[in-house]
């Protein structure tokens, strides 16, 4: 799990162009959206791509994304349960 969280942070930084941010700057339990990382609706769509590209997970609809995308930890938990 720890390893997955670290890997996920690196994917987020790379794919969302978070150039000023290091993995250790991201609190795995803090909300991803809202203030902290300044993520928005385009980033949410890019996270859907990350799930598909690296973990083979296809979200059925964007409505189910909200609780999954809450934090790096919730994302990692979802990946653990659903990865192929």
């Amino acid at each position, binding site marked *: 799990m720890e390893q997955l969280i670290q890997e996920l942070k690196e994917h987020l930084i790379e794919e969302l162009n978070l150039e000023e941010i290091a993995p250790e700057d991201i609190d795995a339990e803090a909300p991803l959206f809202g203030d902290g990382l300044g993520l928005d609706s*385009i980033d949410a769509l890019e996270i859907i791509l990350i799930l598909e*590209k690296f973990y083979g997970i296809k979200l059925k609809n964007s409505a189910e994304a909200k609780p999954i995308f809450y934090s790096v930890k919730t994302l990692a938990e979802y990946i653990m349960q659903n990865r192929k």
Partner: protein
Amino acid sequence: MAETVNIYFGAMSLLTALGDKTATLDAMSKGVGGLRYSGRFGMNAGVIDGIDAADGATRFETLAVSQLERVLAESGIRLSDSDTQLVLSTTKGDVGLLEGAASSNAIPERAYLYNTAMRIAGRFRCANRPVVISNACISGVSAFVVARDMLINRPLRHAVILGCDVLSEFITSGFASFKSISPNPCRPYDAGRDGLTLGEACGAVVLTTDVNYATRPLVRLTGGAVTNDANHISGPSRTGDGLCYAIEASMRQANVTPSQIGFVNTHGTATLYNDEMESKAVALAGLGGTPLNGVKGYIGHTLGASGVVETIICIEELRRGKIFGTLGYEKQGTSVNVSVSPGEQKIYGARCVKTASGFGGCNASIVLEAGESEQMEQAEPSGKPEPSGKPAAECTKRNVAVAGEYSLPQSEQPFGEFIRAEYKRLGEPNMKFFKMSDLCKAVYIATENLLRNFDLTIYEPARRAIILANSVSSLETDAEHQHIIDRHLPEGASPAVFVYTLPNVAAGEVCIRHKFQGDNTFFIEDADSGLSEEYARHVIADDKADIAICGWCDKLGENWNVNLKLLRIQ
């Protein structure tokens, strides 16, 4: 007085998935739509059949030329006359030409939008350089706003407005990456709406100040405005304030109140957020009780061309005294009540508001009015001052001063390193900066320097404008998006790339950063002719804004050329 110039609609022609103008209007009055499943694109779409590339011209050019030929023949107007101006509006022009062009140094000359315009203009031996507007999906409505300004401020008698957009995998994969495509034909404003359906269209319209060239019954263009949400580059405003400002400004210019508007024709893309935003804006502008319709259920979302094609449809509706229904609409599906017209409906009132909204946060609204000018009817017999005319002060031109200039320096460093260093030098972190395309970064840094030490706070957000021009449009990002889709990745295209395949998003980023909510127009030229400054000066002189950033912004590979000016009311 310049502002009392009457601008009439002359000959008009269009081509949509439903056919030419007569066929399109006939189908619409029968409630028949033209959206079908397209095997080529793997989705429902409004595709124009039977037009192919011909005589060395691309399909885009063939469509554009065919519609121009029609209106020129019908009107007897010649683009070779020096008092006639061609205005081309499009979201993506001939971007399909990039297919197979993997990197930015392989961009074919033909894919440059101004080259497309020049080839079309060459067919008609245009006396004036064509004016090209690429303002995302408001391009068509934006073109009417610009043409109106030019007919008022340049020595012109006629303008011919062309709106054209065609579908390609570039477009369909981009909208698919935004998850904004409905699996079914789109349903504007309906409770069950779940996304848009793309379409392609081409329309041409003559605008004239000479009533002898107007077509009957007379319809005039009496107002027009462009605004920005200054909220997000792709997400519609949650309040609708930007679009509301555009509607209000256009009605002010037309000197009308909401009760005088017979109907509103909105963009109505049928995405959840767009229609929600529009319903709020329309209600906020006092038009919640006015009949409203949207036509994208018939012909699809035809991008920038939609503004031209849908305006032609509005003109015909005004002439008929009844509006078409909103195909796909059954049940109110927005949080604010608006009067969506489910079927054909009689209208009361000879005026229409036509709106559009697009990526980059832009909004546009124009006012159309059937019949002869009241001012003319009243002024002549009585000889009295016009009761509905504007006060003299509003008709005089305001003086414009230059408040600052800034050119992005050239550098020995590669652009990436150079712009990063410039960003660091600002000392103002912005989480969004590294997400931007290079064009946006260049404009962003130049603007930060241009506005440094300038007190913006004394100017209302709605009175701040940004008018830009360039030659490369967003070609660099276009090539990047094309490169992604050429690889046919299972996860599809990147929305974070696609959103920057619109040059006006560079203006949108500045609008968000500095709360610019006034006019934001993006011109494409081959070289800086001074058009953006000319237009920005009009915007201030004609009392549409108090300050305006204007200038040139090219960035392609390791070449950049960004020269901005800040104008203000004197």
